[in-house]
């Protein structure tokens, strides 16, 4: 009975826990045996809770037997990306500079899940400081794609995506700044959602680019995505960028009804670099949408062609500021040979940060420096306004916009790591969304000839996750993707 529990979605396990068909210990046990088998091969975790996870699950079972309420994520094992603070449990951001850093508080999203008595599987691996699209930039080693371990899982939330795809977590929390939830979800064949900017508190998320970052769910299906979003969203007084508005129960929008939905397909996102199989899978999904009563129309958002450049100025600029706190003074790695303070800063940072992080700090610093600020940073902010305006106009006509999530399926490890710019192009479809603060989801759209997952991106207007869930739930049912990489 306990076999395959690790591939059940949370909503199914929740029913089974309520009816006492399974215990939290059963679920944790099922995950644990898979974790032992695959962690060495996939490296999805920087830190595993192991016995502590089983202990926690037993405690939750005891809580339930004493009459404790079984909420949506009570007793459910969840992986947390290692840039989200967990009190008393190391939070490394996959960097040497935070290798032994132990947070003194829980991120708000962790607090919310703890209040539901979730079970922590461990801290998931990622690209260092969330900078990357392949999870090859981790100080703790690359993460492998469970569908083909010679390939990348995507990034920066590679660990969270792989933990769910490989059945070593029921769901996970990741972060998305330019596509870091959606792109790995696409490459690993699972569902990944970036909520509207401000919907989920960033308190306790180690900041990369403060105007772009959002925490979001990675799950087996759309229903779990809506349920996990319910659990983690909401105004937080500790995050001055969080939205102070009541939010709906997102599971209300899982209606399987696309009648009269107006769908726009921006031609700038149907990029020419796209694999032909991916283009076919998008066309196929659009046909299914049409069959279900949606109206599809090609559209154009001209400024999207500049989104990649805007992002690779603004995100590094914000990062260069956010990462200036890592100087060896109050926490993190410190160089011990420097005799003076500033030498200590320079050496600690040079020795503690990986190459991609340093590249982005350098780009960001350059773009903000005197003489270059106007031409780069301020100019990028103006083009950002145009991008936001293009989306605003599009959403006057359409309920959602659809595109591929990633122009390719999972590429080979080592294939793009030598050329940063080629790597950056992996995010060409996802980046515009963060610049405009919009919500977007990636759902599996099929498998390629090489047995690699492909993903479909559905973008909504600000705070219009309702439309996203409506379209995603319906298309998920229509596409019927129910495969897992079982050959591990």
């Amino acid at each position, binding site marked *: 009975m306990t076999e395959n529990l690790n591939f059940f979605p949370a909503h199914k396990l929740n029913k089974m826990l309520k009816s006492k068909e399974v215990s939290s210990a059963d679920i944790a046990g099922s995950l644990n045996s898979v974790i032992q088998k695959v962690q060495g091969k996939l490296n999805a975790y920087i830190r595993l809770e192991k016995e502590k996870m089983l202990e926690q699950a037993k405690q939750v079972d005891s809580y339930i037997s004493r009459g404790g309420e079984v909420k949506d994520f009570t007793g459910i094992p969840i992986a947390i990306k290692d840039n989200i603070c967990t009190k008393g449990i190391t939070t490394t951001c996959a960097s040497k500079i935070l290798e032994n850093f132990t947070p003194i508080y829980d991120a708000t999203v962790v607090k919310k899940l703890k209040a539901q008595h979730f079970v922590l599987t461990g801290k998931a691996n990622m690209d260092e400081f969330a900078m990357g699209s392949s999870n090859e930039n981790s100080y703790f080693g690359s993460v492998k794609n469970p569908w083909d371990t010679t390939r990348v899982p995507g990034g920066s939330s590679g660990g969270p995506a792989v933990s769910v795809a490989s059945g070593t977590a029921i769901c996970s929390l990741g972060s998305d700044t330019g596509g870091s939830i959606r792109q790995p979800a696409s490459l690993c064949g699972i569902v990944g959602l970036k909520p509207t900017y401000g919907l989920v508190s960033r308190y306790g998320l180690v900041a990369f680019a403060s105007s772009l970052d959002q925490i979001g769910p990675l799950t087996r299906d759309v229903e779990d995505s809506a349920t996990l979003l319910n659990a983690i969203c909401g105004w937080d007084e500790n995050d001055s960028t969080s939205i102070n508005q009541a939010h709906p129960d997102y599971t209300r929008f899982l209606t399987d009804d696309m009648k009269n939905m107006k769908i726009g397909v921006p031609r700038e996102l149907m990029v020419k670099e796209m694999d032909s199989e991916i283009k076919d899978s998008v066309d196929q999904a659009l046909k299914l949408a049409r069959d279900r009563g949606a109206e599809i129309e090609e559209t154009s958002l001209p400024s999207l062609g500049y989104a990649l450049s805007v992002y*690779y100025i603004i995100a590094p600029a914000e990062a260069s500021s956010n990462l200036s706190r890592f100087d060896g003074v109050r926490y993190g790695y410190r160089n011990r040979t420097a005799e003076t303070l500033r030498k200590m800063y320079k050496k600690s940072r040079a020795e503690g940060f990986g190459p991609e992080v340093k590249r982005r700090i350098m780009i960001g610093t350059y773009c903000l420096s005197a003489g270059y600020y106007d031409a780069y940073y301020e100019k990028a902010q103006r083009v*950002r306004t145009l991008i936001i305006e293009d989306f605003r106009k599009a959403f006057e006509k359409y309920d959602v916009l659809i595109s591929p999530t990633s122009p390719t399926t999972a590429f080979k490890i080592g294939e793009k790591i030598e050329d940063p710019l080629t790597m950056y192009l992996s995010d060409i479809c996802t980046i515009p969304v963060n610049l405009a603060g919009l919500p977007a989801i990636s759902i599996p759209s099929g498998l390629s000839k090489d047995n690699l997952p492909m993903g479909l991106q559905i973008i909504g207007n600000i705070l219009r996750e309702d439309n996203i869930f409506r379209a995603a739930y319906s298309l998920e049912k229509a596409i019927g993707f129910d495969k897992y990489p079982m050959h591990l």
Partner: protein
Amino acid sequence: MSIISKEDVKHVAKLAELDFSDGEVEKITPQLDKILGHVANISKVDTTSISPTSHTLEIKNVFREDTVRQSLSKEDALLNAPEEIDGGFKVPKID
């Protein structure tokens, strides 16, 4: 025609408080040059009378009441300190 020279890189490294060896400067300069060369394409966009966006939400000046609350304990604040002395963070001498 390169955008960024090795001298520029050394200058930016100083601003960013990063140490690079000469070999690292050799390696990183063309990488940064390629990236900056690509992103410079935004200069082609007409942004006359378009104001910059720093933030996508229409909120500003989010404050709480100026009342004293429980703050961080010294123990917590020093928990991850590489070196401490007399309840403070110990650092090398200022240069």
